[in-house]
């Protein structure tokens, strides 16, 4: 198998595993469908925005939960944002972690919230590194003169 075919197979196998393991859902497929010649870097742009936004949200959450008197409404507002953006890009596990988090905000449960924050951070860093790997594979395929396979 030549280099391009090898890379393409790697890409397909890796992508498929991300969906199978629940890191990404159909919304990521939808995102890829939006990319076209007029906007060839659309997915990377949106995902980069997601990374920046998520890091801010995580910091805001950590600081909100460290207050003497925790404002659960504020915490919930941040989680709601995070849930929204992760859902919009198809980061399923992050979204699910946010859903669990909101339940603890409703219950004004500090310990539950702290645990959920750790869970969200964990899922976020996982999906971030997986997406970065995926994008790297894409770059390698393009650099080798190949085209990126489209998953059905």
């Amino acid at each position: 198998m030549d280099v391009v075919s090898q890379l393409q197979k790697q890409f397909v196998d890796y992508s498929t595993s991300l969906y199978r393991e629940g890191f990404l859902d159909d919304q990521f497929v939808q995102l890829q469908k939006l990319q076209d010649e007029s906007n060839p870097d659309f997915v990377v742009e949106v995902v980069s925005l997601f990374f920046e936004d998520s890091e801010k949200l995580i910091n805001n959450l950590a600081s909100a939960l460290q207050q003497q008197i925790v404002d659960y409404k504020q915490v919930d507002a941040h989680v709601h944002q995070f849930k929204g953006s992760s859902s919009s890009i198809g980061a399923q596990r992050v979204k699910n972690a946010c859903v669990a988090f909101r339940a603890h905000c409703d219950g004004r449960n500090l310990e539950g919230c702290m645990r959920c924050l750790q869970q969200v951070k964990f899922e976020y860093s996982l999906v971030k590194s997986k997406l970065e790997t995926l994008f790297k594979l894409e770059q390698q395929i393009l650099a080798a003169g190949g085209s990126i396979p489209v998953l059905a």
Partner: protein
Amino acid sequence: MDATCLSKDMADHGEVPHVLAVDDNLIDRKLVEKLLKNSSCKVTTAENGLRALEYLGLGDDQQNISNDNCSKINLIITDYCMPGMTGYELLKKIKESSMMREVPVVIMSSENIPTRINKCLEGGAQMFMLKPLKQSDVKKLRCQLMNVGS
């Protein structure tokens, strides 16, 4: 010409619908903008209800200042959950305006709450859409709204 909808007239004359998209989430704003552009719409985005009203010339301090933007907007699509002014409150303000009340308003939300949906529809929203939006949702939107009016 009926200025309220994405009418056939507009398409026939090569005019492109101009949509005002309102959402406090940066990623969602970028997505809805791309979805609309892919459906051949011109898009202006606003990050909250106040900015949207200011753009339309309906801000509190703009009572007597005439504003061109108003008449150019063919559709407003707004998120429901926004800090400060919700999408529902924005909808009401638009419906109260003699200039803008005929413009269709679509409300989006990530939460499927029937009472919320009914409230928006009764408040004059043309449609309620669940997030995250897909291309097929926006295509449907464009088709449905093109059948309104003429």
